[in-house]
């Protein structure tokens, strides 16, 4: 399993989850966990995904998500999950 975190932040609107999930589905990326909240008026969604099944490179996935973010008007980024484990777990 190759875990990564997709974070989506920006102005809340209809269909953000649908569009992001569709993009992930098209790249055969499995979603393991989703949490979503509104933090001081800002839509914040964190998705833990598994990149094992996808054929695309990390950079391609990141570019595609960033482009989608540009279209919807939110910021989407993807980072390897080990970053967070390294920083917050001894």
């Amino acid at each position: 399993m190759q875990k990564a975190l997709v974070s989506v932040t920006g102005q809340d609107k209809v269909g953000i989850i649908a569009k992001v999930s569709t993009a992930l589905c098209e790249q055969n990326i499995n979603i393991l966990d989703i949490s979503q909240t509104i933090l001081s008026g800002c839509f914040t969604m964190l998705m833990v995904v598994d990149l094992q099944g996808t054929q695309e490179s990390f950079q391609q996935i990141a570019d595609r998500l960033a482009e989608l973010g540009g279209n919807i008007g939110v910021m989407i980024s993807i980072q390897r999950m080990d970053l967070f484990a390294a920083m917050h777990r001894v």
Partner: protein
Amino acid sequence: MIETNEILQTIHMIQEQHFDIRTVTMGINLLDCRKNTDAETAECVYDKITRLARDLVKVGRDLESELGVPIVNKRLSVTPASMITGSDPMRIAVALDQAAGDVGVNLIGGYSALMHKGSTVAENILLDSMPEVFSKTERLCGSVNVGSTRSGINMDAVRRMGAIIKRTAELTAQQDSFGCAKIVVFANAVEDNPFMAGAFHGVGEPECVVNVGVSGPGVVQRALEAVRGQPFDIVAETIKRTAFKITRVGELVAQEAGKRLGVPFGIVDLSLAPTPARGDSVAYILKEMGLEMAGAPGTTAALAMLNDMVKKGGVMASSHVGGLSGAFIPVSEDIGMIEAAAADCLTIEKLEAMTCVCSVGLDMIAIPGDTSANTIAGIIADEAAIGMVNNKTTAVRVIPAVGKKVGDSINFGGLFGYAPIMKVNTANNDAFIERGGRIPAPLHSLRN
């Protein structure tokens, strides 16, 4: 499972608080490149560097993309050049500069000489070539070690470095004497420092190695905002926790970079390295501790604690901590230091006191263009004495900007920043500097 608030904390550190990996530096041994002529050596140097560092920039970019953490600089450090140069070191300087450009790194360190006890013929020639080399090359940086706790201070080297810095300033007068920003004069230089301009690949190092320098003054400053008014025990604890988190990312990057490049991971340098960007300043951390600006009474104590807590927090986060590890206090590269110097709150004398407790020394300080070579040598001698007696690395990187006086400023742009010209004590020290010779090592050098 990682908590949502922890994930958001990391994201905010990167997006809002300028957290980044400051440098991934590959160290390369060049001792086997020494041939019969400087021309052959230069060719071998170019080939070896471009072969070993071919993928350095790509690996850096890949890791940056996958982790979402900026890796600001990819750099190279090499064996001190004076160990492989002969009568024409310029040839090798050009090869180093060109190799760095061709593999895509912005700086390469190691046009260096270790002269803390005396100098070799090759070192003398290399030293004389420095002004011309640093005016003609773009990416090459160099350093000279003039003293150490074990061997004392080579005052002949100190005197010569004053003159070399002056000459370099003159040859690069058109660029605000920028050449001087590429020369560091050390005492107790370290062999595995990944930061420029003082990086070189020491002779005790392996064939090739990857060292990583972390940063994040903005992250520390933001963490301290949450504990305003609390006692120092809490401040210390907060810095330690933050330094731990920052260093863990450095460790992750260092391990991954080493694996992908097929070379051993050397050390993580857990320094707080500022940039001229607002919110990326070591001086602002001191401000957050309660000082109006850097230089106010209490500054040295604040910096001492910061430096120590960065080490204490970071040391458990990495399997190998090394380099300079601590808080850097360059003037031109730190917005808070620039403001304090411009307001006359920060003087060279106060900076000298601060260098007793920070990770290095007098760094990126612009001084009047008419400062004499012996005055600069005197500044170097004082700084080397602090390093020698306190068993720590100290350094001098001053820019005697040609044609500029107190009240003027210089601007290098980018990470090198800009700086007001600071006042220098010009009382005559000619008879002192011209004595030459060697200041003997202090009593505590005899530790066996």
